[in-house]
């Protein structure tokens, strides 16, 4: 197929191009309670093609591009026709010129994964067992979905780049429930990973079940004014998306982010200062890879140090526009631990936010919030499970006075503090 595409590109006299071949194989298991509702498997191949049209106007060089995806079933004639159409469209895309990735001599490293096995059915079974043998879940799981996928990529371009890499993606969705005579509640959570770690998974499901029980007992309260708030679970990872986005070369180029290299992004910090690193090969992240889809070889990149922005990150196009070093697109982030232990955070009255209906973190203006489905309020003597309020705040307003936990946790492509402590927020 690749030769067929290359031939079509040559036939259409297209000198500059990129081809990403993506082969996906998957085993999927869908369960209602503990019974298989359906089993599925999948083998597909996609060819993602980008064609570039170079032109000049008033002495200024431009590079237009357009992309399309082919299935392996396309005929030579269809490929030629589509490439012709896409190249024609690329001619109307008037973007500043930027270079493509050149041939790479250095080879990227690989992470080992049990999900790389030829037959992944035993892995699916292992995951099933980890979930259904977690503490307290017997007869408390409504539904589970298990996906084990292997993605094999080959990235080629007209400058002779030709690299291969694989990604392993495990994904499960588990719905735990609990009921009393009055009500029934559930907690629905996704887990993503790249390796088989049944003990870790089992511990996570056990914790999810505990939260489900807490939710069953949760009472509605009106509001809590000016109270210390602890953010926990996956919302913590979403919180840092704002910092990742604001340091992105594309947002800076588009003037949407005003983040400046060498300046403190966090303002006059009284609490913990943010130190964040992009890590291409983060163990157990389903997004780990040595290369991005431009074929850029990725390396560990320190983005923020003590609240100060050290560099922008992004693909070759936008880094070239800003005249900064191309980092490539690195989706994994590592945030350094903070100064407060979880024990210290929870020693005085506070509310810990555990489950949101949908925690939102706006990457442009830093607004965060959502409806709280489960929180634990500590009044100084006793814990109270509460529900039904909502939280809303602006990161730019609160970032000078927040604390990260010493305890670390991983949620797929995030590795960092397990909790964030805000000394004073209103929950209403």
């Amino acid at each position, binding site marked *: 197929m690749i030769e067929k595409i290359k031939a079509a590109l040559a036939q259409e006299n297209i000198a500059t191009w990129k081809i990403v071949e993506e082969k996906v194989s998957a085993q999927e298991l869908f369960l209602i309670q503990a*019974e298989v*509702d359906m*089993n599925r498997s999948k083998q*597909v*191949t996609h060819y993602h093609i980008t064609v570039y049209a170079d032109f000049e106007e008033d002495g200024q060089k431009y590079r237009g591009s357009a992309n399309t995806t082919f299935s392996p079933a396309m005929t030579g004639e269809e490929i030629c026709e589509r490439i012709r159409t896409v190249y024609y469209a690329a001619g109307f895309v008037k973007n500043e010129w930027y270079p493509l990735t050149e041939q790479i001599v250095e080879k990227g490293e690989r992470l080992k994964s049990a999900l790389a096995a030829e037959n992944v059915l035993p892995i699916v079974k292992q995951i099933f067992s980890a979930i259904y043998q977690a503490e307290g879940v017997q007869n408390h799981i409504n539904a589970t979905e298990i996906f084990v996928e292997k993605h094999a990529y080959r990235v080629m371009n007209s400058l002779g780049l030709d690299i291969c890499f694989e990604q392993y993606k495990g994904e499960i969705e588990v719905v735990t429930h609990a009921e009393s005579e009055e009500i029934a509640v559930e907690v629905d959570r996704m887990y993503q990973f790249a390796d088989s770690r049944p003990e870790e998974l089992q511990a996570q499901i056990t914790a999810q079940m505990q939260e489900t029980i807490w939710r069953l007992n949760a009472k509605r309260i009106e509001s809590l004014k000016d109270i210390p708030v602890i953010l926990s679970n996956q919302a913590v990872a979403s919180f840092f998306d704002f910092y990742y986005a604001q340091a992105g070369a594309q947002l800076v180029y588009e003037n949407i982010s005003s983040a400046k290299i060498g300046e403190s992004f966090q303002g006059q910090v009284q609490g913990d200062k943010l130190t964040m690193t992009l890590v291409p090969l983060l163990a157990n992240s389903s997004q780990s890879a040595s290369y991005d889809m431009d074929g850029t070889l990725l390396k560990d990149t320190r983005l923020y140090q003590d609240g100060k922005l050290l560099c922008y990150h992004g693909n070759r196009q936008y880094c070239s526009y800003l005249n900064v070093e191309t980092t490539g697109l690195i989706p994994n982030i590592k945030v350094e631990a903070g100064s407060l232990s979880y024990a210290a955070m929870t020693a005085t009255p506070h509310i810990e936010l555990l489950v949101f209906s949908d925690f939102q973190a706006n990457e442009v203006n830093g607004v965060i919030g959502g409806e709280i489905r489960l929180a634990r309020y500590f009044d100084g003597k006793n814990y109270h499970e509460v529900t039904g309020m*909502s939280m809303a705040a602006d990161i730019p307003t609160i970032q000078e006075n927040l604390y990260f936990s010493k305890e670390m946790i991983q949620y797929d492509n995030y590795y960092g503090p397990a909790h964030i402590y805000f000394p004073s927020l209103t929950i209403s």
Partner: protein
Amino acid sequence: MKAELSKYLQENKPALKKLVADLSEDFQYVSVLGTDTKGTTYRVKSSGTAISDSRTVERGFVVRVFNGIGYSEYSFNDLDFVYAEKCIRKAAEKDAAFYREQGIAIREYNKIEEEELTQSYTSELQIHPEAIGAQKIVEELATLVAEGMAYSDQVIELQTIYDWAQVSKIFISTKRDLEQSYLYSTGYLIPYVRGEKSAQYSLKSFSGLKGFELIEEMKNGLSKTIDNTLLLLKAKRIVPGEYEIICDPNVSGLIAHEAFGHGVEMDMFVKKRALGEKYVGQKVASAITNMRDGATGVEEVSSYLFDDEGVLGGNTLIIENGILKNGISDLLSAMALGSKPTGNGKRESFERKAYSRMTNTYFEKGKDKLEDMIASISHGYFLEDFESGMEDPKNWGIQCVAARGYEIIDGKLTDHVVAPVYLTGYVPDLLGSFSMISDGELILSGSGFCGKGHKELVKTSTGGTYIKAIGRLS
């Protein structure tokens, strides 16, 4: 003009029929869904342009068989039907046996019973985007960008997006031979503005079962979209509390979608994940409330002849005069519940499983005038456009994030803006508080994608008219 069926699917139909026939010798039920969706997304902004395939572009097949106990599926996208047959046999026989041997029980289903049916459908449109070409589309969007950037010094960027997708599908089983092709367009205006202290942006969407004629709606909406975004620069956070509210058709639609759209997806009944199952026949909303979901009720982005399981689309009456009447269902969930499938079995793509999903979901119009509704409020908020929503079918919690709210004081709309506005609460309380519903045109928006839990994004539309209610805002 008609959206013609994919030649690729037509040419491969005999091979698919042979695959179904061959597998039918060993399996009591066999079906194949073939998909071929083409389309393009054009993004034009002052800092650059991008042209790519539309998000829903796909070409491939999914074969489903009854394995004697339940159902197995295999998704593929090449034309090696011999290999595909081998793979679905493996999934239905060896893989299913592996799970049984490992002590994992298989849920029992009956064989799917179908009636003989051969039908075809193609949608109508005015201007096919392929016919008008990339240059014209980029030029039109660039003109919008230029106008938007010149509108105010505070506009720092304006992103315009036009996206079209032509969906072609065929469904072959031993008794069914169905084919359909329809084209929908979506458009977005996304201004970014900067004030002294902060940057803000908003998103205004346009959609329909139509072609590039949608651009006229985008042109007409430009100045209001930028005005609304500029207002965000002086927007304040709302003082949390319970208020009388008026929801515009977008927010009304979001409430319908989150409350009794997700709440009556009947695969959730099978999993005992939805409270709605126990409330069929009971009051769940005020007596003036009527709500529907269906592929055939209105013409929007999720209007089709048949769903992804070969069941004809319908127009389900979900709430009638405040009483919960029916849920929406995929084929297997209907079998499990002993009900009739409603044509709501949808897949994110041929690569994914089918679930009970919404199509076009809306509150039916009422008899009130919008101006009377506003005049009836002494202090409240007019909620306009939405950012996101989240369902909780098990507990009937609801979260809708409106893009902005305008304060209503003494029956008059003011320019005091609050943003964003979180509308949260208990579904029957919110729907039970509906006191006025406006007459006039039913307005639906099909610009976004709807997820099931945290994934499985499919095209849906939502809407209604203006609704007056009482809501907890923060």
